[in-house]
């Protein structure tokens, strides 16, 4: 299914990575699917609407986290921080909000029915199982999934908590699925 068959949605996000990788993405004007990255295939963005300040800080902290914990940028010619911003243009029929009330209700109801044990990470897996079942029933795959995930209470090097920490302790992210990476456009480097 084409991503432009329905009315489209314009999403905006930031992406923290190494300078080498960021420059390669900007030069090629596209994100490449990679199955061996820390998050697996797909591309991941911190969502923002008008004010990019929080999404930029989250992207920076992700870079610190991935670099320190997983040596994600080991071997890169320039592993220093770079932040990208991009637009994601996706048909509203292939955009799925995994943090919507209705999906959370389905998730919780199903977890209770199947007696999911979160200690085995099965709760996280159940989200994906439900998403795939929805896709199967509908007969097509989603290109972009919105998910609200935990944010850090402390941004390294900063003394003040992001307000989202006080508000919800979560921030929205966009997961662009491997088959939909072409929906990412207007990729630009952001001043760090």
């Amino acid at each position: 299914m084409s991503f432009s068959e329905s009315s489209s949605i314009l999403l905006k996000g930031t992406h923290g990575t190494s300078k080498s990788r960021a420059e390669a993405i900007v030069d090629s004007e596209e994100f490449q699917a990679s199955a061996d990255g820390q998050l697996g295939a797909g591309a991941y963005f911190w969502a923002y609407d008008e004010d990019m300040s929080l999404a930029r800080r989250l992207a920076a902290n992700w870079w610190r986290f991935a670099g320190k914990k997983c040596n994600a940028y080991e071997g890169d010619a320039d592993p220093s921080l770079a932040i990208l911003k991009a637009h994601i243009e996706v048909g509203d029929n292939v955009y799925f909000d995994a943090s919507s009330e209705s999906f959370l209700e389905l998730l919780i109801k199903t977890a209770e029915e199947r007696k999911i044990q979160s200690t085995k990470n099965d709760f996280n897996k159940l989200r994906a199982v439900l998403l795939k079942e929805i896709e199967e029933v509908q007969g097509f795959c989603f290109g972009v999934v919105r998910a609200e995930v935990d944010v850090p209470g402390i941004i390294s090097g900063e003394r003040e908590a992001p307000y989202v920490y006080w508000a919800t302790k979560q921030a929205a992210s966009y997961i662009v699925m491997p088959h939909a990476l072409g929906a990412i456009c207007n990729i630009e480097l952001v001043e760090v």
Partner: protein
Amino acid sequence: MDDLFKRVFERIAKLSDAEFREKLDGVADHPLVKVYQAVSCSWGLLPTLSLDEAFSKQDIERYLLSQSISYDDVLLADEWLAANDEQFVLAA
């Protein structure tokens, strides 16, 4: 959409345990699973730690970052952890 979700719930509910287990195991590398796995620890503090230290300190951070304490407590805890790195290594 409600009807769609009901259909999905019914499909999952009627699976046998083995079939359901297979479904769960089949999505281990799904991006939606990976993203929640990646942020499931208190990753705001973790970057200051080495891998060797991460396990024990992560446990402490998870406790410290629970909603029952204030942000100031978290800042103090971060400073304490940073100041006691050597003690942690020795204790481990």
